[in-house]
């Protein structure tokens, strides 16, 4: 057969279409393609693509669900960016959350993955323990952690008292509420990062370590010049996924503090939720959601730009 092997996804299909004998081609390929697509595409267009377009329109309107919607141009964006102190607070809180939780959770995940990537007895038990927090329901563990964080009765401050530290008042303190939420998030998420890093570590060929050892590299040098570069695509993935996910933090903030005290832990998504479903400013909430999208997009693009400097592909 003169059929070429599939090379890249795009050309493979094209090459096939021409190489195929005529009697195989006459079967209404387009029609069957649409039939295959229909169940997903109809639902997708109505419930995903249409709302995206609607959100784009809605962001330029003032609408409280009761009175008719009024076109106000860029007014929503102007208010958000220039006037609304709560939005600015939510913006900064979310940045704070991302800037602290992503490196710590990824770093801890990597460290634990390195420790768990050894042929030692019982290592799978440890891996399961570290993944345990990830599979719990966020709302449920957030309820429990509220207790742990209680200033007087909570376990954390009582444990701190054992080593002579006078613990802060955590969730009721403007200064410590966000670190408390970050700590819970790291506890819940580092196991997931560990799994991703473990998969990456196991993909590094053993020969590279052998070659490095023969060249006289010590353990640190092997880590620095073999493990880290070979792992960088995984690290890149973990960082991207964590940043995108962390910008959308919602559950913990809603359950633990509902954004308080004051607006100390109001995140962007919590702000959107409150603007839309508590003050019923639908257009305003939609505009805030678009700003969140722009922020995530910018950070993702910066990451993709920067990857040339530090990510090694074979």
């Amino acid at each position, binding site marked *: 057969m003169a059929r070429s092997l599939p090379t890249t996804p795009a050309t493979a299909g094209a090459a096939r279409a021409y190489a195929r004998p005529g009697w195989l081609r006459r079967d209404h390929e387009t029609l069957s393609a649409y039939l295959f697509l229909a*169940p997903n595409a109809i639902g997708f267009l109505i419930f995903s693509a249409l709302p995206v377009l609607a959100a784009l329109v809605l962001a330029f309107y003032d609408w409280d669900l009761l009175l008719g919607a009024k076109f106000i141009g860029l007014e929503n964006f102007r208010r958000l960016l220039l006037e609304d102190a709560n939005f600015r607070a939510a913006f900064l809180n979310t940045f704070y959350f991302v800037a602290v939780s992503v490196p710590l959770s990824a770093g801890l995940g990597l460290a634990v993955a390195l420790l768990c990537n050894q042929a030692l007895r019982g290592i799978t038990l440890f891996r399961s323990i570290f993944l345990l927090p990830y*599979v719990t*329901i966020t709302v449920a563990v957030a309820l429990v952690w509220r207790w742990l964080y209680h200033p*007087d009765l909570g*376990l954390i401050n009582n444990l701190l008292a054992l080593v002579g530290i006078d613990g802060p008042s955590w969730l009721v303190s403007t200064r410590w509420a966000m670190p408390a939420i970050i700590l819970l998030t790291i506890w819940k998420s580092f196991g997931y990062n560990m799994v991703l890093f473990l998969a990456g570590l196991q993909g590094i060929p053993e020969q590279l370590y052998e070659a490095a050892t023969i060249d006289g590299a010590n353990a640190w040098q092997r880590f620095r010049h073999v493990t880290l570069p070979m792992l960088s695509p995984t690290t890149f993935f973990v960082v991207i996924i964590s940043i995108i996910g962390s910008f959308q933090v919602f559950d913990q903030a809603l359950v633990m503090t509902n954004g308080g005290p004051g607006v100390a832990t109001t995140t962007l998504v919590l702000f959107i939720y409150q603007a839309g479903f508590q003050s019923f400013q639908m257009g305003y909430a939609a505009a805030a959601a678009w700003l969140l999208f722009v922020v995530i997009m910018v950070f993702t693009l910066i990451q993709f730009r920067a990857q040339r400097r530090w990510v090694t592909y074979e």
Partner: protein
Amino acid sequence: MASTALRGRARGEERQLAWRRIAWPLIVYSVLTALAVLTLIPIVWMVLTAFKSAPEVAASPPTWIPREWHPENFQAAWEFAPFGRYLLNTAFMAGTIMVLEVLTSALAAYAFARLRFKGRDVLFLIYLGTLMIPRQVTLIPSFLLMRELHWIDTYQGLIIPQAFSAFGTFLLRQFFLTIPYELEDAARIDGASRFGCFWRIILPLSGPALATLAVFIFLFQWNNLLWPLVISNTDGTRPIAVGLRKFLASTAPTGTC
């Protein structure tokens, strides 16, 4: 002279062996154990506290092992909120979304991976584009759409808008592209229809990918809070993540509200 050098080297190797066999595993185990204890503390404490009496829960300093065991707490919690209903709602919502999404994504992914048709690339770009837009952007319009359809506080409102994802289609398309064309061509020559190829060749070969997607979807939906929070207003449709918030008021220790 040569022999002493050899002996010295042997001793060095012995030391290295002792390090690798005993000292290093000991260090790794102690660090891992310390971390595991820290990880488990909240979970263990949660389980033990579930058996404590109300005064003991608020005792200062907190106790680890309950002084008296109160297994009836579980019954009280079960009766405080309709947990059975919540679990049923969650299982039904997550299960239906999982089945619908895997099935429709697989069908669409087959079209994107294997068939040539007008508008394929444009449609695929639209799929990829919405993948980059966070769910919160569509939260408000989706809610308004549900209101128009009178789907607020219904199962279809919980399920249908979440059941057609670009994510699943993209994931499965990438996997289908790795399956050799020859298998399908052979089946076509033997008279199989397009759907026959999909059903009898592509799907059976994609077990791991389908299972991965199914687990992802189920876990996400089991934990999902935002959309059900917006859609469910009564216990009849509330999944567990939303229902658990009932305990917020009653479990709030003084000083955290």
